[in-house]
């Protein structure tokens, strides 16, 4: 019973967080009147009437919420007059139907644009995480096994430095080195004209373009995984059953594999889920540097173009995903570790 109570309370709090984010999201973007009629360079052909017509199309002629007649300047009205025909409720209603709005820049539904770029971000994060986890766990295990020796200090040092690197700077350095000395492609997902390729050539092409961005992400995340693996392993090493195993004469390798690794998986798995927010931040920077066409780059460009619906939709998507991932991690952890009862 306690277990169910715990689960339900966690789910409730996650839902509350999501609602909070939605409200925050809406008002954030309505504080400054973003203007769909201003996309692109100022053009004298864009008459005042055309601009007004564009604004009407995006529903920006309606009051934001009826307690305030307008936000900028702040004018108060009656909360009761037709509350549903306001921007806020229209927004909320659309959201419930899965409609994230229409981009000011391309006139396409935001959720389509997000969907296209999300795939690329998932590819990037997926490969990056895999490499980081694999290397991180291996290095962490070695460092713990050789604790307090030179190897340990070297890896610790490396991790602290990796922690302090700005993600985008590492990307720039790798981009520079990679393109100048190794001739690796440094921009985009395919070579020009390669969009129509299929099968193996496409795979290889994308793979080549993926090398440097993935490497950047892996190095940044590596340090943290290594450190966690190391400290978890150290704790496990001090447990009695390891001593028993050694006394029994089991080879080190098998001890590491069967006992330590398996028990260390638990915290690692939860960390990966919890890390999602940080990974997203890294993805934004890496995609901007390498022009990798993912969600991070879309956000970055939407900022530059003041494409507020796109920003709003992307931000909401990311926040909800991170909240959800956190919830999953907490639930998973409580399931796997019976010692966890209370909040």
């Amino acid at each position, binding site marked *: 019973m306690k277990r169910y109570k715990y689960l339900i309370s966690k789910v409730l709090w996650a839902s509350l967080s999501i609602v909070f984010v939605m409200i925050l999201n809406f008002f954030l973007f309505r504080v400054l009147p973003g203007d769909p009629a201003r996309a692109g360079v*100022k*053009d*004298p052909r864009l008459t005042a009437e055309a601009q007004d017509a564009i604004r009407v199309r995006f529903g920006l002629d309606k009051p934001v919420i009826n307690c305030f007649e307008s936000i900028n300047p702040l004018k108060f009205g009656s909360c009761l007059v037709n509350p549903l025909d306001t921007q806020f409720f229209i927004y909320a209603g659309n959201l419930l139907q899965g409609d994230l709005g229409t981009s000011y820049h391309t006139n396409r539904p935001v959720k389509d644009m997000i969907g296209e770029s999300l795939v690329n971000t998932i590819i990037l994060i997926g490969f990056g995480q895999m490499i980081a986890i694999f290397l991180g766990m291996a290095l962490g295990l070695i460092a713990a096994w050789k604790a307090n020796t030179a190897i340990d200090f070297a890896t610790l040092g490396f991790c602290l430095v990796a922690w302090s690197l700005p993600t985008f700077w590492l990307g720039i350095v790798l981009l520079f080195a990679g393109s100048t000395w190794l001739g690796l492609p440094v921009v985009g997902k395919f070579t020009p004209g390669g969009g129509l390729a299929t099968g193996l050539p496409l795979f290889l092409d994308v793979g080549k373009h993926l090398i440097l961005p993935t490497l950047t992400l892996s190095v940044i995340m590596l340090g943290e995984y290594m450190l966690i693996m190391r400290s978890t392993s150290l704790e496990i090493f001090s447990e009695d059953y390891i001593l028993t195993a050694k006394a029994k004469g089991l080879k080190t390798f098998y001890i590491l594999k069967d006992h330590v690794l398996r028990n260390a998986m638990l915290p690692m798995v939860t960390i990966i889920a919890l890390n999602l927010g940080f990974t997203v931040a890294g993805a934004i920077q890496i995609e901007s540097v390498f*022009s990798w066409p993912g969600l991070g780059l879309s956000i970055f460009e939407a900022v530059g173009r003041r494409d507020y619906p796109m920003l709003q939709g992307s931000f909401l998507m990311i926040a909800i995903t991170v909240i959800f991932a956190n919830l999953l991690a907490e639930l998973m952890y409580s399931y796997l570790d019976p010692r966890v009862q209370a909040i």
Partner: protein
Amino acid sequence: MSKTKWFTICLIILTLLLSACGQKTPNTPSTVKIGYAGSPDTLNPGTAILSEAYVMFELTYSALFGQNLDGTYSKDLLDSFEVSADGKTYTFKLKPGVKFSDGTSLTAKDVVFSFNLYKEHTEFPYMNTYTANFDTIEAVDDTTVVLTLTEPVPSIEYLTTFLYILPEHIWSQYAGEKVGEFPNSEMVGSGPFILMDYAQGEYIHFKKNPDFYGGAPKVDEVVFQTFNNQDALVQAIKTGQVDMITEMPLTAVATLKNAKDVSVAVGAPLAPDISDIIFNQADPENCPEGGACTGHPALRDPKVREALAYATNKQEMIDIVLLGLGAAGRTLIPDSLLPWYNDSIQDHPFDPAKANQILDEAGYKDTDGDGVREMPDGSKPLTLRLNYPSDSTVAPRLSELLAKYWEQAGVKLEISALDPDALTSICCPTFDYDVLIWGWGSDPDPSFLLSVMTSESIPSGMSESGYNNPAYDELYQKQLVEVDPANRKNLVWEMQKIVFNDTVYIVPFYAKAVQAFRTDRFKGWITDQPKQALEDVTSLVSVEPVR
């Protein structure tokens, strides 16, 4: 396995090998790969705003007239046309036998449908301005369209060149509100190229239209690849990943000039962006509704503005900001807008002494010796606020240079960058600023750029300067309806002289278009015209592979 099976397998492998070998013969399509740092905002000709989208429309659609690189127009879809004596009725005869890329015929009803579509939808950003004078459009027969106007217009060519002819059978399903959201991902048109593949923000891939009425292009395919980073364009062309780039960071020009098999082309851009320095001249007594009109009073004195123009070192600005790749500006009409650009205007030379002299004579003296002049009545020092959009690449350096120059004339600047939306709210029609650095896109016809200096643009917010000159307004109205090209040119030239002498704006420069192409891939790039746009349809139908 049985013998038959082995035999079949060998046969299959052999066939595959042969077909693979076969692809090595010169049947591989010749594909022009173009790199650029933007991308179309949408493929919908009604709602598109960015010039990149218009490049794509030029490749896939036809219009009645097409624009040439020297500023003249030529008939595209038209065989011939007639205009009535009162100038209000045009009879267009279309070329017969034109087909859309899906095989259907292009007839007069498609033209009528398209024009009506553009006319009705007020939310199409640019289309209203073109169809403003359209009254009725009718198809008399399959190849004849009659257009009646409410007023005669100077240039029907200009008005129709961006009204791309859309296939009625496809677009009529999207009538009403929804037509702006139609992504048009097939782009069925009648132009020299046909869309093959499009990934928004990444690339757009065309193949040639072998049945194009103007003659099929000499290359098979064209790809525009988006690079979000200008630097990467340079790497890409050096390594041969692309065959032509439409822009580059100016610092890379020297590198590319020395690169093997790469040729750099510099010329006047097809669709120039014009940077300008705007003075707030709005009269507080006559402030538009809702406006603040807080401009520094000194700026309403044309002598002050003129002095500041003398104090501005345009050549140094070009050298530092554009690395020398620009020409000194005069008015909002750029030097590439032929024949409208008034090249007889003599620019003010850089002469700080003269600037100081003008200000002294006008009574703006520095009475308290702090290096900053004051108003003649001693009331306010000549300290001006300067704002620019935070996303501008040239404005930060320009503002630093201006501060340096105008300090020598005794005028102090307080600089701050603003978010573009914030900038709009202080600019017009609020007029709550002193000096702005901003810019305009341009248009093949000078009317729109000229209109921002008329007094009737002040209340709508199109006028940023608040300049109010009835003589100028009158000339503007006249040229709007002047049908004779030579007369119209004279009027437009006169207008430029007026605003230049009144220093309504200081236009520091007209930036040049800098592009590069590989010499070992394709030849026939059109670089000898007054305007340069290697990505324009004129080049792309002419280039052929280097054999």
